[in-house]
């Protein structure tokens, strides 16, 4: 294809490269600032007192942060697992068909958590769960798990569906021709082929659950802080470098998950 003609680059537009590079650079300035402060040796946020890991150490020893991190991870693991299982089943139910009545309805329901403002869902769950908490007396972490699972489902579902859409039914048909029952066909044929999509979906769901602030803030019972809600509570006082250190660790987890997602979903087998 002739990209260049008359000796000038047809794809270039004046100033676009500059804007793009400036924007991408700016995207990383606040994140970098936060990370740099986490390694700062002084209490003051404005002076650089040399490199140190002391805030990581003190965050590690802070009971409240420890609790919050563990609770965040616990909720994220359970919610992402449930959401991925349900998302996989739902993806199997909504792909590789000529279409049937109710299919559009299913799409709408499954993607619904993506389009409703989080604050509205949060308020709705607050109202309903407050009643249920009074009726049942149960105030455990189950409410958070349920809420997280629900809004993680579309994130788990979409990559799995994308993967399934690229697979045809030939191999499953071959398996059943060889007398595999439908479970075995799924277990030994569909699932292994689907695995990259499932892993990608799991990671997205995990990161989304880990990052949630608004819904968690409204649904949690007393003393059920996750790291994001703990951090939100801290800003009323002053941001301590300890919070920066904990945030930096979370950042590292998210970046690793997203990078892994990216490499897994890019690999086309």
């Amino acid at each position, binding site marked *: 294809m002739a990209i260049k*003609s008359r000796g000038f680059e047809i794809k270039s537009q004046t100033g676009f490269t500059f804007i793009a590079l400036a924007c991408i650079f700016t995207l990383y300035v606040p994140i970098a600032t936060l990370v740099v402060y986490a390694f700062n040796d002084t209490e003051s946020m404005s002076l650089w007192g040399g490199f140190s890991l002391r805030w990581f150490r003190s965050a590690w020893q802070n009971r409240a942060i420890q609790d919050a991190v563990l609770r965040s991870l616990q909720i994220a693991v359970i919610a992402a697992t449930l959401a991925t299982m349900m998302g996989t089943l739902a993806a199997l139910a909504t792909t590789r068909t000529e279409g049937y009545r109710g299919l559009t309805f299913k799409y709408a329901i499954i993607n619904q958590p993506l389009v409703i403002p989080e604050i509205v869902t949060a308020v*709705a769950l607050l109202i309903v769960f407050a009643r249920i908490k009074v009726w049942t007396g149960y105030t455990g972490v189950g409410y958070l798990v349920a809420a997280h699972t629900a809004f993680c489902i579309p994130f788990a579902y979409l990559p799995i569906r994308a993967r399934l859409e690229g697979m045809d039914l030939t191999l499953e048909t071959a398996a059943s021709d060889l007398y595999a029952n439908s479970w075995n066909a799924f277990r030994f044929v569909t699932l292994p082929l689907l695995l990259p999509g499932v892993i990608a979906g799991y990671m997205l769901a995990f990161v989304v659950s880990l*990052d949630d602030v608004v819904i968690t803030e409204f649904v949690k019972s007393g003393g059920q802080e996750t790291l994001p809600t703990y*951090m939100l509570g801290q800003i009323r006082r002053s941001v301590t470098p300890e919070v920066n250190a904990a945030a930096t660790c979370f950042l590292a987890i998210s970046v690793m998950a*997203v990078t892994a997602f*990216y490499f897994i979903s890019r690999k086309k087998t």
Partner: protein
Amino acid sequence: MKPASNIAETAKRSDVRRRWLLSAPALITIFLAAIGPLLVVLMFSFMVKGDYGDVKYWQFSTNGWISVLFERDPIDDTLGIATANFTILWRSIKLSLITTIITLLLGFPTAYFIATRPNKNRDIWLLLITIPFWTNLLIRTFGIQDVIRNEGLLNILLMKLGLISQPIQMLFTDGAVLLGLTYVYFPLMVLPIYSSLEKLDFRLVEAGYDLYATRFKVLWNIVLPLSKPGIVAGVILVFIPSIGAYVTPRVLGGGKNMMLGNLIEQQFGQARDWPFGSALSISLLAIVTLALLVYVKNVSRSGGSHGH
């Protein structure tokens, strides 16, 4: 022929039944923990406000909805326009519209830049946009706070350069909220525009130049119309979370520069007016639905005119 078609019919029916069974867990979970509660919010918006939060059950009242637009004068009990609410509503709409425009003006060139990179580098550029997007919203907002605080990076830099002698108060202003929203939702504008531009056939651009079009004319008459679906998607994806934003105005706007999300939160917190909070939530939902309808209409129209 009849039995055969019957068998096919039965097979099809059992397949559909199996598919409903498979999707049931996801559908039920989302219904119970996301959609169902919205109906309760709608109900609550028509009930009498409880004394300590909550509502008085099954006592009908439209006070929650009246409060959205009017406020009762505490002295003579007459209704007046709720100026405080209008200020917040207007700020929410204004800030989310400006956010959408700025992210579009910056996001389009960024998406274009990425889409015109050689194939093998594109993914890396895309990853650079995606990483901040998947980074905790609160962490990114904190990062912004670190940069624009009075003793933050930006003020120090400006003072070092001698441009200012006193730190400028940037935090807790509308501008700070705007900066935060633009920063946080920028990737949501870039990604859909990129996926439109990626499919752009640059032979059309070349043809434009062959016909002596200027760079601007090519951009305006060829590239922009062809990337319209991506632009519309980006606008919607940025506008919806912006208008419902809660964390960003709370962290960067402080108590004074509230948006709709904060006003809603207040009714379920200090103000203890659940019917009013519910009515506000439904109003927000209505604005979002309206935006989505515009989107759907636009997509179906542009889909039709291109003939595929």
